[in-house]
């Protein structure tokens, strides 16, 4: 570094009154940053992104065709039964888990404080996070469906009605999961504890929400408790997409309950949005 370079290169312009860059444009830049960081962090790719796909592959291989699920005379392969739960899990991991951990870590290490020192609008920051969630969850789900169909012969729906259901459950679940992640990011007291504090509830919910085995095997109180959270409803909505309609009788309520699914997910979306907007902090708890 030489003095001449600094004096010639860094002139201060006079009388410039340019406009601030738009919030959307900055949000897209942030989205690009988030995606670059995500794909370069190997652990996040393996444990968040590939997790549902690996789980499907392992479970479908282990149980294979020996353990078909039979309901009212209709038989589906284990892989087919397992797929909706993994789609739902993927949605929650790519939204809630990824966002809650990354925001908690970024608050702890000062990334947020640094961003706060720039003219970046908070909206653009969250837009970047939402873009990351959206891109990863779309890629993850597409890959998951492809593996299920091609490697394990799971029949995918061929009527528009089911794909419509898929679309709204997916969109509502992704949105609810993302705002939950933002709101929950204030819970871990430090970046180091973030993973444990964020992952534990979602791990427990995977077991109690009918992701790994039918919810009918669960005690009633556990099912009632899990019914308060989005994962159970996303999984149930996805079962209505990927399983034959007769299997609705295997649900605890005996129906797919689309109305309740939409209501619970929308409620989480609104409540988490309000809570998140009120509790979001740029700085650590201990930083003034």
């Amino acid at each position, binding site marked *: 570094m030489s003095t001449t370079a600094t004096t010639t290169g860094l002139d201060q312009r006079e009388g410039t009154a340019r406009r601030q860059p738009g919030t959307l444009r900055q949000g897209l830049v942030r989205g690009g940053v988030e995606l670059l960081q995500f794909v370069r962090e190997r652990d996040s790719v393996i444990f968040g992104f590939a997790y549902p796909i690996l789980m499907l592959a392992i479970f479908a291989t282990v149980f294979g065709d020996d353990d078909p699920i039979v309901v009212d005379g209709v038989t589906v392969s284990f892989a087919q039964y397992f797929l909706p739960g993994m789609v739902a899990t993927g949605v929650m991991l790519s939204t809630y888990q990824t966002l809650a951990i990354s925001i908690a870590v970024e608050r702890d290490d000062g*990334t947020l404080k*640094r961003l706060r*020192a720039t*003219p970046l609008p908070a909206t653009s920051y969250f837009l970047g996070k939402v873009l990351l969630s959206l891109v990863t969850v779309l890629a993850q789900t597409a890959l998951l469906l492809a593996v299920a169909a091609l490697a394990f012969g799971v029949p995918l729906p061929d009527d528009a009605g089911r794909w419509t259901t898929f679309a709204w459950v997916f969109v509502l679940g992704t949105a609810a999961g993302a705002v939950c992640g933002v709101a929950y990011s204030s819970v871990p007291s430090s970046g180091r504890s973030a993973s444990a504090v964020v992952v534990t509830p979602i791990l427990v919910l995977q077991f109690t929400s009918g992701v790994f085995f039918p919810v009918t095997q669960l005690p009633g109180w556990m099912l009632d408790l899990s019914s308060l959270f989005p994962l159970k409803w996303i999984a149930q909505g996805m079962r209505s997409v990927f399983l034959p309609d007769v299997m609705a009788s295997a649900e605890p309520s005996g129906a797919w309950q689309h109305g309740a699914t939409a209501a619970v997910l929308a409620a989480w979306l609104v409540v988490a949005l309000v809570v998140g907007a009120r509790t979001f902090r740029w700085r650590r708890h201990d930083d003034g």
Partner: protein
Amino acid sequence: MQTSDSQVVRVRGLRKRYGSARAGFKDAVAGLDLDVAPGEIVAVLGPNGAGKTTTVEILEGFRDRDAGEVQVLGEDPRRAGRAWRARIGVVMQDSRDMSELTVLEKVRATAASYPDPRDPAEVIGAVGLEEKMRARTRALSGGQRRRLDVALGIIGRPELLFLDEPTTGFDPQARRSFWDLVTGLRDSGTTILLTTHYLDEAAMLADRVVVVRDGVVVASGTPDTLGGPEARTPVVAWDDDGVRRTERTDRPTAVVARLIAAARPDSEIPGLSVTRPTLEDVYLSLIGEAAISDGVGVGAGAGVDDSKEAA
């Protein structure tokens, strides 16, 4: 005294206290006044806990204040918006955020938030990171990270740059080139508010030095005149039958001549020294530490007494 309009920073009676009624309050800033004129480099000096960082973070808009008047670029940082943020640059004291982005990617992404950013490659060159342009920021050394911090602080072409202890952990050569960068920025019209522990850094860079202690300004002036002529008075010291004697005087030669006259011809005066207090001596006396020159407190005696009370 200039009017408030022409000042880049104007602070009057700033107060900030931490703590709670139960645990007791501590005044981090206790009635601090500060002015920074356009194009000036002002260094804020003070021991740890003097309130430097709290003050700077209030000026940056990161913290609320309890009392006092604060104007930065004509606005109150508490209420200032994005357009104001685009006019300031911030290099914070501790930055631990590391990322998988390269230096160039990070600087570019930050530039996207400003209305009139500098050229990213140019800024990276100015802080001496051209060779690390495509390196992941996670892989940078401490000194390189600090330079990246500075690059991110100046990418938006700020009118006012805050540097909070920018060269902590630098090797001497890195500090030297960093100083060139800072003076280069000042020469191009950037106003700079710097906090530092290093006296040589303040002496080298600052047009004006402000010494803060216990949340108030105890002295302010150019590095050459800080503490007033009194604090710069030379000290003559010698041993008299094993007892250390000192004399502060504007005419050290006369004192030495008197000592020579009193001594036997051709004999040495034991332990003779004539010391002119350095900026460091003046600073230490101002913040109430014992000055180092021959163990003599050169500042106001009250400062030394205070440190004993505090200890």
